């Protein structure tokens, strides 16, 4: 039946629609033009956002995925278009973000000939994708795209790249789309072993000083409610990793703060005093553990984890509960004794008092004529957003301040580049976050360094009129590196001083409402004005130049050796 035949390019669009995609980020170019031609025809059903650089497309798709739980989609052409996606793909891989990236490729007959804009994107992207595949025949498209979405979203999510040669986009096929429901060589999540759940429950019920650390696994498996019930019934102090932030409301009485290098004092110090450490959907990153040789050695370790390769990777576990954390938490809650652990909680409160007196108070209310601090800016945003905004942070000092001081009432509110630490992430990711959650306030918190790494995406904001709020905390330094130079390199500020352009003028060039402030008395009104704006808004806050983020676990030090200054 000749008239059932459609082009490979049209099949790509029909597959995306069949997967429920209504928004894609991308940038056209020679080898992907047939797909763009179909995007033009289908523009009523599938909205394409033209970014200004393919890296922006990948990060925007990540931002979209992180706040919606859906798969983010990015499209690029071959060669440089494809390679420009790679940083975003690597970021999505290490932060377990579901992405499907579609790249054009030169025609099959030109593969390996060093054709114009030919690059081996399959080879390049292999180490940073959950799966990738090169389509060279049109008829492969439906099955491969179905697999791509299934793999990206199921189990521990991750990025998938599908490279489609130009001939496969032009050639025709009989279109028949079936969603992928399983792959014989791939088990997305281990089957829960109830014996392990019982062993974990026994350890927890007998613990005197149990301690929970929860990560992004909670958010990815939508187990926020189960986490809350588990924490409330067990009465166990719970701390978040940077990507676990917002899975439990920050103001929850059992939430004791952040673990890790610039986390809170109590959760870090007391990691080495707990008797049972319950890790929920987290992977013991080195920024969390500090020196592994002295990490929670006194404690029994229970690891709730979906990915078997994470168990015993960094920290040796006593009980591994392998499953989707929503299933394992649901199973363990009835087995847990109701407790309150009051005296143990008091230890966290005492440590918080120490941290408050040494660090937090001065950060939020600076004295001695110091300029605006990053922490007080975040606190001011809290005051006006009331903890309902999505915060998208870049990488560096401002990120640590944002994650330490931001208040969140609901999950999927903290979007940041955790594992890869990608400067330039926040501006495009905020675009994706706002498009994914148009009814929520989205505030990007960015340093003056990271802002200039994807500053071109102001153009995307201008063209799409997406009302994101952008706060640049400008200390005219690459602040985190400068802090390390001060602390560990004897104040040799090698290439960290920034001579910056007039950011307000640049934003105004894109017709984005803008303001720069440098006086504390202007902060309140400026933040209020920004958040009240119906349109996108750029706020540059000139902050104290040489402030440091504390507390801090220096690289290679133990969590119990966290420095307050």
């Amino acid at each position, binding site marked *: 039946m000749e008239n059932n035949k459609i082009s490979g390019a049209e099949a790509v669009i029909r597959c995306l629609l069949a997967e429920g995609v209504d928004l894609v980020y991308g940038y056209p170019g020679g080898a992907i033009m047939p797909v763009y031609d179909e995007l033009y025809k289908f523009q009523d059903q599938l909205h394409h956002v033209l970014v200004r650089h393919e890296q922006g497309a990948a990060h925007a798709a990540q931002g979209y995925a992180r706040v919606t739980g859906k798969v983010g989609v990015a499209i690029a052409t071959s060669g440089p278009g494809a390679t420009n996606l790679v940083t975003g793909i690597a970021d999505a891989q290490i932060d377990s973000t579901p992405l499907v990236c579609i790249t054009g490729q030169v025609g099959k007959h030109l593969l390996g000939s060093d054709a114009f804009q030919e690059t081996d994107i399959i080879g390049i992207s292999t180490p940073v994708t959950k799966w990738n595949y090169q389509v060279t025949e049109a008829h492969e498209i439906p099955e491969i795209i179905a697999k791509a979405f299934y793999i990206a979203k199921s189990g521990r999510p991750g990025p998938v790249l599908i490279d489609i040669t130009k001939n496969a986009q032009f050639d025709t096929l009989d279109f028949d789309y079936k969603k992928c429901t399983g792959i014989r*060589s791939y088990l997305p999540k281990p089957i829960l072993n109830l014996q392990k759940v019982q062993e974990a429950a026994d350890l927890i019920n007998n613990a005197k000083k149990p301690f929970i650390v929860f990560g992004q696994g909670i958010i990815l498996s939508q187990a926020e409610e189960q986490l809350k019930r588990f924490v409330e019934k067990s009465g166990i102090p719970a701390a978040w990793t940077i990507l676990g932030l917002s899975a439990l409301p920050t103001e929850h009485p059992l939430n004791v703060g952040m673990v890790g290098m610039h986390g809170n004092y109590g959760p870090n110090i007391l990691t080495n005093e707990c008797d049972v450490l319950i890790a929920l959907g987290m992977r013991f990153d080195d920024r969390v553990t500090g020196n592994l040789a002295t990490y929670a050695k006194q404690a029994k370790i229970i690891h709730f984890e979906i990915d078997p*390769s994470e168990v015993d990777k960094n920290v040796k576990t006593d009980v591994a509960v392998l499953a989707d954390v929503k299933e394992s938490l649901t199973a363990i809650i009835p087995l847990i004794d109701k407790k309150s652990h009051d005296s143990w909680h008091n230890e966290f409160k005492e440590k918080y008092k120490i941290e408050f007196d040494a660090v937090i108070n001065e950060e939020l209310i600076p004295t001695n004529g110091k300029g605006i601090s990053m922490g007080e800016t975040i606190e001011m945003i809290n005051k006006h957003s009331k903890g309902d905004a999505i915060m998208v942070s870049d990488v560096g000092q401002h990120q640590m301040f944002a994650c330490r001081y931001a208040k969140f009432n609901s999950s999927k509110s903290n979007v940041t580049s955790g594992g890869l630490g990608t400067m330039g992430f926040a501006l495009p990711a905020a675009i994706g976050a706002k498009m994914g959650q148009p009814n929520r306030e989205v505030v990007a918190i960015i340093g003056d360094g990271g802002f200039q790494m994807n500053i071109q995406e102001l153009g995307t904001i201008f063209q799409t009129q997406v009302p994101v709020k952008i706060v640049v905390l400008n200390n005219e330094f690459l602040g985190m590196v400068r802090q390390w130079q001060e602390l560990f390199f004897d104040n040799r500020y090698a290439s960290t001083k920034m001579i910056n352009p007039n950011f307000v003028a640049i934003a105004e060039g894109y017709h984005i409402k803008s303001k720069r402030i440098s006086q504390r008395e202007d902060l309140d009104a400026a933040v209020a004005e920004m958040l009240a704006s119906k349109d996108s808004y750029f706020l540059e806050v000139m902050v104290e130049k040489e402030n440091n983020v504390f507390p801090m676990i220096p690289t290679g030090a133990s969590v119990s050796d966290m420095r307050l200054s």
Partner: protein
Amino acid sequence: MENKIFTISVYSENNVGLLNRISGIFLKRHINILSLNVSESEIENVSRFIIVVNTTEKWVHNIVGQIEKQIEVIKAFYHIDEETIFLESAIFKIESSLLFDERQIQNIIKESHSEIVTVSRDFFVISKSGKRSEINDLYNKLKPYGIMQFVRSGRISVSKEKMEISTILEELK
């Protein structure tokens, strides 16, 4: 933790690019592969990789976890030498005149239980299967007489114990 020789067995789909994906896992950890063999396994369309590395148990455990995580990998295992039956093959090309001029060569061939594959006017070829040490022995014995070409295959091995893959593979049959 001390370094040891480990044999990693990987059962996988037979797809383009998987070798790259698997070798990248070693590359990322700066671990050199001592030997690599890929062939069809006992199941149609299922490939079997045999990879030999010299590393610590902690690393090999980590690597096997990462390999098994790859979408197209069905199952991966690691074993120490005592747990497997393994051998390598080698082929030696030697000048034919030596066979007659150097009587000792005939004894070496006989004692090493190697096979003469072919003899021509100019050269003859012998093959030897066995442990690496046996092949090394043969190599060292032949070397003084002059070896025109020498090539050794990667290790191939089977486990002594039944692998838990067997039931999974049954289902795939």
